[in-house]
């Protein structure tokens, strides 16, 4: 808390430094900006940055890592009663001590008896540590702020090149932000790889990639390690592939033709209405598509197939009729079809951009040869736009592969190695969700398998995206 107040004080200090630096250089130049190397504001900014930045970095670091530092100091001399506890309980103990002092989230554990005494003692110690840490931090921040200002202040003179130095500070700021973004990504991938590696120690990677049975429930019994074959991911990938194919069968033609209509046939007013409408579809949360699939499309399809089944009963196709009578609400076809609808605006908006990027001169050239519009589209524009459209479709595929909500709600949960669109199937993403929701321990192969699935999915979509972007890129270069 104090640290945040200190940060506000620091801001005020740097504002003062800004105006002081500005005034100093103007005084030095006699009020004329012409003789200055840089605009007066740059001198102010230079002083302000040196005054504020180092101290601010210190304060932010402490506010982020303070709890860890305090906990580490607390653990330096553990009470005997606490060391006897299991590791995870110790973690809770120390976490609660620190949280009580700093006002963080406390667990509901009741500490009494010997442990209660230890808790009280540690609490006193933690208060001390916390007070010292805050005091030391504030003192250090104050010293840094003054030192920074003192370093920058004497340099201010009319001939001092403040502008490029401020420029460097700004470049550094942008660099730090991009490093944060990159590091986060690297961190996510690293944890994915690390946890997957732990999983592949329990389940051989070969078995995971080529096994035909997916039944992670077996491993939930504490006395049993994953039995062979239970973690074969093939049915999941088949389910993912099946649903993706159904979705693309819907999305590719409809999206593409809609894009052709929009870019080649629609007038300006039609386009102004239809394009935003299509893009509204893209803004609907997938969970809404999910219950649309589960509550509307599912029963509709089921009724349809059951109806056909009833007609076939007793005839030469009696077996087929019997099968169709048993079709349920949840099937790959429903999830795929609704996912296809979800992808239509994605495909059409990307394809529309790509088709519009085909130079007008090609259209004119073809029309001037006496070709009709549709001949121009099929013979000139589509061949020219094809690589880009392929890229757009690949991007749509990678979205279909990663989509979760619709499939969870509309395709069922049974892992089946089937290409029958009327069967219930499950996908990689759905399995990850079911594996990790609820209270889970993160050291059994069951939960770890989610990371294996995640990693495989990540690699697949990454490759798809790279290929797709490469294709789109190459296509763009051709016409720019």
């Amino acid at each position, binding site marked *: 808390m104090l640290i945040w107040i200190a940060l506000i004080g620091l801001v005020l200090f740097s504002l003062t430094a800004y105006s002081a630096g500005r005034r100093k250089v103007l005084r030095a130049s006699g009020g004329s900006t012409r003789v200055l190397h840089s605009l007066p504001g740059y001198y102010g900014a230079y002083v302000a940055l040196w005054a504020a930045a180092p101290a601010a970095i210190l304060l932010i670091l402490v506010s982020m890592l303070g709890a860890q530092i305090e906990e580490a100091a607390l653990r330096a001399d553990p009470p005997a009663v606490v060391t006897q506890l299991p590791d995870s309980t110790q973690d809770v103990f120390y976490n609660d001590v620190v949280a009580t002092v700093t006002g963080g989230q406390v667990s509901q554990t009741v500490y009494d008896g010997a442990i209660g005494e230890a808790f009280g003692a540690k609490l006193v110690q933690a208060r001390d540590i916390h007070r010292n840490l805050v005091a030391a931090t504030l003192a250090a921040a104050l010293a840094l702020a003054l030192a920074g200002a003192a370093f920058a202040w004497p340099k201010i003179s009319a001939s001092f090149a403040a502008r490029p130095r401020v420029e460097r500070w700004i470049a550094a700021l942008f660099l730090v932000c991009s490093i944060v973004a990159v590091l986060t990504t690297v961190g996510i991938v690293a944890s994915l790889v690390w946890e997957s590696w732990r999983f592949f120690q329990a389940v051989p990677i070969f078995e995971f990639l080529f096994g035909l049975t997916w039944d992670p429930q077996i491993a939930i019994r504490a006395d049993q390690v994953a039995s062979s074959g239970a973690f074969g991911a093939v049915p999941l990938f088949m389910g993912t592939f099946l649903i993706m194919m159904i979705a693309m069968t819907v999305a590719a033609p409809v999206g593409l033709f809609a894009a052709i209509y929009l870019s080649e046939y629609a007038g300006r007013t039609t386009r102004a209405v239809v394009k935003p409408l299509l893009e509204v579809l893209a803004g609907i949360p997938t969970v809404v598509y999910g219950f649309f699939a589960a509550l509307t499309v599912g029963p509709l399809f089921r009724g349809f197939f059951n109806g056909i089944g009833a007609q076939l009963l007793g005839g030469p196709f009696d077996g087929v009729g019997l099968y169709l009578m048993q079709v349920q609400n949840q099937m790959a076809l429903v999830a795929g079809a609704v996912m296809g609808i979800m992808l239509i605006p994605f495909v059409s908006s990307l394809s529309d951009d790509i088709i519009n990027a085909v130079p007008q*001169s090609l259209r*004119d*050239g073809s029309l*001037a040869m*006496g070709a009709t519009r549709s001949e121009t589209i099929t013979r000139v524009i589509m061949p020219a736009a094809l690589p880009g459209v392929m890229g757009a479709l690949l991007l749509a595929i990678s979205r279909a592969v990663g989509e979760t909500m619709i499939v969870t709600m509309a395709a069922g949960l049974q892992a089946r190695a089937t290409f029958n669109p009327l069967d219930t199937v499950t996908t990689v993403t759905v399995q990850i969700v079911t594996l990790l929701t609820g209270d889970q321990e993160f050291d059994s192969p069951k939960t770890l398998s989610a990371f294996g699935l995640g990693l495989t999915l990540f690699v697949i979509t990454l490759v798809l995206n790279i290929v797709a972007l490469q294709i789109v890129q190459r296509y763009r270069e051709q016409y720019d």
Partner: protein
Amino acid sequence: MTRQRDDAHAQGVSTTISRASQAGPKVSATDISVFYGDKQALFDVSLDMPDRAVTALIGPSGCGKSTFLRCINRMNDTIPGARVEGRIILDEEDINDRGVDPVLLRARVGMVFQKPNPFPKSIFENVAYGPRIHGFASTKSELADIVESSLKRAGLWAEVADRLQAPGTSLSGGQQQRLVIARAIAVSPEVILMDEPCSALDPIATAKIEELIDDLRSQYCIVIVTHSMAQAARVSQRTAFFHMGTVVEAGATDEIFTNPRDTRTQDYITGRFG
């Protein structure tokens, strides 16, 4: 009798232009006005373009030359909001008539654009494009014949005979422009419109195209828009000077360039404006 003579007389006065071509104009435009939305780009333009001759349209930027050119194959139809009024007679038929299909018209009136625009196909397929969509060839060898003769007439055959399957875009700018001309010739048009066909080309490629235009003159009615006065003087027999959406002066090229009647024409061709 009298009336006939009057007509003849009137014709002689109104078009000193058409004296050069004894056969009468191939394309005759009367009172053409073009509107882009509310903006009027052409004001009652009348112009005759003779067969087997090159008519050059010159004038400063934005004067309506290209707009007029695009009326002749009704390419203005493809621009939303564009409206054309007036009559354009091609071989005694008004091309703006309701019964005229612009798609079929464009097979008779070919067009070459400012920037070479080969399709993203092979050289062969580029030239075969028109014959294919219009069904001019019933066998493969017939199609190959049309492609070969078109490329020969466009003076490109010798350069591409051994790589007909290479993409059209792999050619140089000048070659691409000749490829596009071959593509236009392949559907045996009667009129060829050229919209600044050399403005994107270097002098050597330009010289080749001009030579080609001169060759093609013996078979087609050619209308060319150009910014280069020298080019107009070199390749055309007739010249029309456009200014602010009207035709200021039209006549035999020699006459326009040596003895212009209007001061605006004189100012333009002597380089005082535009």
